[in-house]
């Protein structure tokens, strides 16, 4: 046993010192030594080669090209009224406008079957399908054995990811989180001078930078001049808990969320000590008035950090933006929209909370190639005259969707777990009733 430790100790020492010097210190001060860049270049080259190989091997190249569109069927955009008019045009008699025919069911039938084959909503709650394989088993979708060299490359990838990158990343994250707790607690002991705020920001930034390195995150920030300012509210589309790390790498935010137990609770309490965040007890969250009031108080205080909110309320798979809950838009104050788009080729950031627990999700993150994403800061927006919260929310949502190249959906992200509201079906029935009885329907 003694001999074992005599060997392991120096190795561990070298490991740690190199870690600290090469990765941690530069990360803390925001400098880059170029190691990550080199890694990414090698990675991109290998993936390009792999893609080329797969395309060459599979003779049905057109299938790969078509999957790029990723849709299975073509759907009409025409309205209920248009479609039913068309169906009725071939009536044996020309009856009064607005009457029932047996062929009306065909419209609903086709719409129903189309939605069974492919619908806009359920596909947003599972990971996006890749156009070409990125050498991870988890995304291996219909790609069979191609060649020996490809398999060897995949094997090398497995070894690199699990034996080299994973321990590295776990160590970094552990250091980052412990530093967060220690640093914020230390800052918390200081009296309330201006320096305290500056130190608190520094500690937070350093820790998030270390954590970002712990995920091999490469983030490109665009339009930094629109970065959220104090007293404002930052809204972004939500894909995973990692979004917080991504955004906090470039600025300091006040977090909003539920009080958790365990490790999260420790982090939350530590962060609370150095600068004010907004944590709610579970019972308090149901009281919407209370929630809005606390957020408003925070936003009105111009010395406090901008609030970070994800109005979708749940994780979506980064191909679309779903309904923004109007609560965040009723607070008043300036809204700073931010669009986040991950590149799924290097690692899938979406957290499918019904399939993976937080721990297994983090492990999957740490055994991906890297997390690559683009963050766009959009110009600040404010509620217009005569615009209500819902319209304002939709306007912000469209801006974010457009910038990030995401599909703008009106559906509620809560449909991940909950049933759809009956009122939507009633809307459809009402529209159809107008077609049956003409304009004098009983309202």
């Amino acid at each position, binding site marked *: 046993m003694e001999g074992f430790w005599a060997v392991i100790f120096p190795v561990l020492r070298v490991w740690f010192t190199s870690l600290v010097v090469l990765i941690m210190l530069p990360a803390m001060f925001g400098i880059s030594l170029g190691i990550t860049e080199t890694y990414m270049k090698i990675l991109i080259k290998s993936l390009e080669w792999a893609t080329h190989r797969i395309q060459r091997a599979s003779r049905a190249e057109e299938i790969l090209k078509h999957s790029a569109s990723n849709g299975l069927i073509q759907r009409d955009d025409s309205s209920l009224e248009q479609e039913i008019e068309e169906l009725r045009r071939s009536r044996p008699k020309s009856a009064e406008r607005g009457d029932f025919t047996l062929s009306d069911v065909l419209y609903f039938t086709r719409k129903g079957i189309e939605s069974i084959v492919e619908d806009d909503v359920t596909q947003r709650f599972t990971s996006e399908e890749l156009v070409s394989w990125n050498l991870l088993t988890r995304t291996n979708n219909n790609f069979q054995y191609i060649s020996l060299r490809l398999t060897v490359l995949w094997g090398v990838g497995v070894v690199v990811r699990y034996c080299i990158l994973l321990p590295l990343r776990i160590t970094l994250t552990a250091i980052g989180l412990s530093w967060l707790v220690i640093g914020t607690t230390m800052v918390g002991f200081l009296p309330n001078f201006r320096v305290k705020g500056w130190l608190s920001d520094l500690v937070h930034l350093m820790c998030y930078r270390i954590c970002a390195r712990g995920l091999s995150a490469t983030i490109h920030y665009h339009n930094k001049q629109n970065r959220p300012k104090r007293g404002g509210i930052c809204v972004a589309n939500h894909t995973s808990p990692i979004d917080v790390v991504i955004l906090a790498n470039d600025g300091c935010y006040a977090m909003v969320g539920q009080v958790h137990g365990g490790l999260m609770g420790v982090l939350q309490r530590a962060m609370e000590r150095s600068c004010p965040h907004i944590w709610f007890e579970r019972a308090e969250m149901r009281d919407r008035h209370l929630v809005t009031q606390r957020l408003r108080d925070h936003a009105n205080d111009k010395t406090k950090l901008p609030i970070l909110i994800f109005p979708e309320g749940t994780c979506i798979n980064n191909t679309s933006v779903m309904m923004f809950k109007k609560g965040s838009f009723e607070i008043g104050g300036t809204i700073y929209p931010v669009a986040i788009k991950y590149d799924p080729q290097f690692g899938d950031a979406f957290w499918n909370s019904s399939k993976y627990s937080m721990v297994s999700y983090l492990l999957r993150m740490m055994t991906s190639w890297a997390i690559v994403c683009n963050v766009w800061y959009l110009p600040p927006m404010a509620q217009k005259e005569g615009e209500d919260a819902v319209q304002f929310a939709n306007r912000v949502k469209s801006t974010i969707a457009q910038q990030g190249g995401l599909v703008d959906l009106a559906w509620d992200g809560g449909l991940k777990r909950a049933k*759809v509201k009956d009122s939507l079906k009633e809307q459809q029935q009402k529209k159809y009733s107008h077609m049956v009885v003409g304009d004098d329907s009983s309202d």
Partner: protein
Amino acid sequence: MGSRASSLLREEDIEEIKRETGFSHSQITRLYSRFHSLDKGENGALSREDFQRIPELAINPLGDRIINAFFPEGEDQVNFRGFMRTLAHFRPVEDNEKNKNLTSGEPLNSRANKLLFAFRLYDLDRDDKISRDELLQVLRMMVGVNISDEQLGSIADRTIQEADTNGDMCISFSEFTKVLEKVDVEQKMSIRFLH
């Protein structure tokens, strides 16, 4: 998530489904992925709740009837073969197929079979007649609470009167076909696959 799905579907199964329904190989594998993603219980079969989870289907006024069409008499689960057999009704009719000699008689996506599918949406008790009650049921599903009983009743009476040729106050399948003879059923009851 997709990765294991295609491996559960064997080549022989794909060939059989191809023969029975006429779908292409790639269409069958993609529809199998879809089937698998809807199958939350991962037991190789879909229940009515699995269909109800699709929001666009849940708000469709005829949603329940359409879901019913997938389940054979008295069953609560539909496997992939049954799923494909029902979807096959909505495959577009290709011109070269009209001349082919198919071993199993008429293809599932012929005009007559498409019309039969629509007919069965009305005819719940499968007695090959749409009675006034059955027609009223479907009408009520489609209009919700927006039309009164009397108005709906008179609409139903008028429809039966127009269609009924043999005076039994019900609509048989041939009478139904006659009413819809000018409707482009092949196009209206088909889904356009992208590949």
